């Protein structure tokens, strides 16, 4: 048999220049941090740089800068002009797309194919989309002259660093808010590069402030009395802590939290595309996706066929150097996350589920986990209830469509769901019953700035994207309240 080996096809990292140390981006300039911590490439554990650990003084300075910028410039600027800044940013992101993609892959561990084809283009698209809203806020559905909240505190996760930054900053600025953004502890570099983009775009000082750090930095930001609005993407646990922290205050919040999405496959599904959808649903971005299709629900009469095809397909997944253009599955973002994935997978073994992974050689350094499925999983298993946030799929079966819906909805989460059938009426029937904010029918893990994203129940508050997402950064003019 002929073996077609793909030679290494490494994206050059010469396009990025990483400084040995970074400070915070406050009021348009980089302020030196007091303490620093290393940020590493999870694919080989190389230290890439040292990141400033933001404390309450840094947060205070950033919030004050944002407040001054809000009061003196940004809230007074016509939407038309704000929009042009966003267009500028979108264009610069496009121009520097390769640089962002390589840096993202280095810092995060995701395959260059994804950072290049998905994260960075979508981030630019978010700025482009929201730029157009800036001078049309009267038509956002909140009546004439809606107002921004003021200073928005934005805390983003490590799974899509630059994309989540765009999801947060673009609508906030379009609506007229100024922002203090805290990137995730392990993935600050593209946010700091974005700070340079703000400088290139000549964005007024203080409109965007970026304070790096860890959970305590984020907590200091949430607790700061000078913020009006919080946008958080991350774990449900932290989301609840934020909800409690702001309970005594007037702060508004949108929360994009965890998920345990059911991907429901009916017997009349388009099988090959469905297998692709399953793979994309759980192995996209190493499964570090809050809306990942982590619970596969297969109708019993096709379960064997789908599983056998899925295993054949999984054997084709190329795991390895994220900078290789042919890599499908990159590195797990951190050793902590890897430990969590291992722990939950172990519980799957212990609870009697059957683990399977294709043969694949994992690199010796860095954090890696092979694409994995568990069969024989029931709703009672931990791996069917808890978010694993890794390339691990739990496979369950069902007999009737009603049973599928009951199982799919049997979770405190409600972020996303998938449904596969060639029968249109069944798709709509299921879409109506699935309790989730995003339903992917005959597809999975698709994102667009025009498409609202967000969850039911414990998956969060509010939406991001589209008109719905924009309104989270606006309030009605006082006169509209009787």
């Amino acid at each position, binding site marked *: 048999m002929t073996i077609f080996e793909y030679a290494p096809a490494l994206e050059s990292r010469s396009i990025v220049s990483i400084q040995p140390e970074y400070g915070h981006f406050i009021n348009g300039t980089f302020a030196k941090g007091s303490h620093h911590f290393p940020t590493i490439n999870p694919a080989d554990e190389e230290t890439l740089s040292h990141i400033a650990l933001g404390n309450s003084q840094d947060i205070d300075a950033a919030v004050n800068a944002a407040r001054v910028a809000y009061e003196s410039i940004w809230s007074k600027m016509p939407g038309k002009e704000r929009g042009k800044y966003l267009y500028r940013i979108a264009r610069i992101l496009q121009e520097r797309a390769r640089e962002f993609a390589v840096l993202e892959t280095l810092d995060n561990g995701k395959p260059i194919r994804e950072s290049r084809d998905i994260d960075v283009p979508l981030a630019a698209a978010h700025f482009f989309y929201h730029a157009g809203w800036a001078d049309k806020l009267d038509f956002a559905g909140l009546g004439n002259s809606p107002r921004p909240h003021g200073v928005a505190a934005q805390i983003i996760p490590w799974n899509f660093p630059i994309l989540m930054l765009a999801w947060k900053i673009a609508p906030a600025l379009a609506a007229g808010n100024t922002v203090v953004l805290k990137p995730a502890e392990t993935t600050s570099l593209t946010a700091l590069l974005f700070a340079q983009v703000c400088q290139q775009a000549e964005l007024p000082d203080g409109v965007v402030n970026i304070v790096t750090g860890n959970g305590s930095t984020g907590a200091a930001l949430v607790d700061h009395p000078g913020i009006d609005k919080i946008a958080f993407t991350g774990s449900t646990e932290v989301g609840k802590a934020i909800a409690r922290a702001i309970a005594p205050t007037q702060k508004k919040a949108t929360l994009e939290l965890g998920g345990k999405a059911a991907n429901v496959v009916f017997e009349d599904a388009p099988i090959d595309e469905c297998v692709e959808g399953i793979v994309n649903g759980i192995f996209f971005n190493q499964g570090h996706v809050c809306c990942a299709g982590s619970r596969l629900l297969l109708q019993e009469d096709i379960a064997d066929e789908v599983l056998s095809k899925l295993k054949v397909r999984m054997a084709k997944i190329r795991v390895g150097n994220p900078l290789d253009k042919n890599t499908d599955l990159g590195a797990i973002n951190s050793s902590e996350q890897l430990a969590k994935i291992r722990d939950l997978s172990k519980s799957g073994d212990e609870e009697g589920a059957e683990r399977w992974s294709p043969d694949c050689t994992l690199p010796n350094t860095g954090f890696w986990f092979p694409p994995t499925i568990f069969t024989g999983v029931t709703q009672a298993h931990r791996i069917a209830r808890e978010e694993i946030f890794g390339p691990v799929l739990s496979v369950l079966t069902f007999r009737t469509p009603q049973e599928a819906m009951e199982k799919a909805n049997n979770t405190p989460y409600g972020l996303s769901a998938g449904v596969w059938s060639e029968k249109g009426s069944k*798709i709509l029937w299921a879409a109506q019953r699935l309790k989730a904010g995003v339903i992917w029918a005959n597809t999975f893990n*698709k994102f667009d700035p025009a498409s609202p994203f967000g969850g039911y129940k414990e998956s969060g508050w509010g939406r991001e994207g589209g008109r719905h997402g924009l309104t989270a950064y606006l309030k009605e003019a006082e006169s509209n309240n009787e």
Partner: protein
Amino acid sequence: MSERLEVKKTYKLYIGGTFPRSESGRTYEVQNSAGDFIANACLASRKDLKEAVVAARSAQSSWSSASAYNRGQILYRIAEMMEGRRVQFVQEISQSEGISVEEAEKQVVTAIDRWVWYAGWSDKLSVLAGSTNPVSGPYYNFTIPEAMGVIGAIAPEQNSLLGLVETVAPIIVSGNTCIVLASSRAPLSAITFAEVLATSDLPAGVCNVLTGNKEELAPWFASHMDINGLDLSGIDEPSLLSEIKTSGAQNLKRIHSFPESQNPRRILAFMEAKTIWHPIGV
């Protein structure tokens, strides 16, 4: 010939389409503004709340899957029934709130009209809050607003009927079911309103009415894990509000207080946006 003795009304709770007494057997005295006894009202317990949530949850799926037109008609029917009870409402409100008959009359007609206003939204919400989204790719993508589930509500103390209407109507018009705690001080019109609901076509469990003490019950509303959202417009005390919001974070309840009385925002606050993607192909 002796004077005829009036048959007094017993005011009870309204849970799952029936009028039980509080399981606790507790009642409290409802007094007029002069402090005179008017009636005994049930002092609902946390177990009554629990029962009401069970009733609301079991009614939710079929109520939200009823057609919007059907829900609109049922709600309009409620307004018709309210109109028939006008005199009774006026009397109860005037008596328990200590306001003039004219003022009470004004509150009642406003409440009926407001109910009609909200009822009419049932089949217009998806136009208001739905959209088709032009995504870049061969996908049909649309967003629809959908009922959130079971909503708890603390009705305002003032304007006992109008406040109740402004609380309940926006919650249930979209397909939610609710448990509402009536004005503690003036709960009688709420129970009469429940009688209206019972004799209209509103399915049992869609709206459940409790009377009692909000300081006692509100924390149980907040911590109940099968309640999806809370309307706290009837709570003014910042410390209680803060306590409820803190406790409600346990299942990330959507918690709102509304300054506005007639605004579709009150409806949409208890709806979820669901976005559906489907490929376009042959």
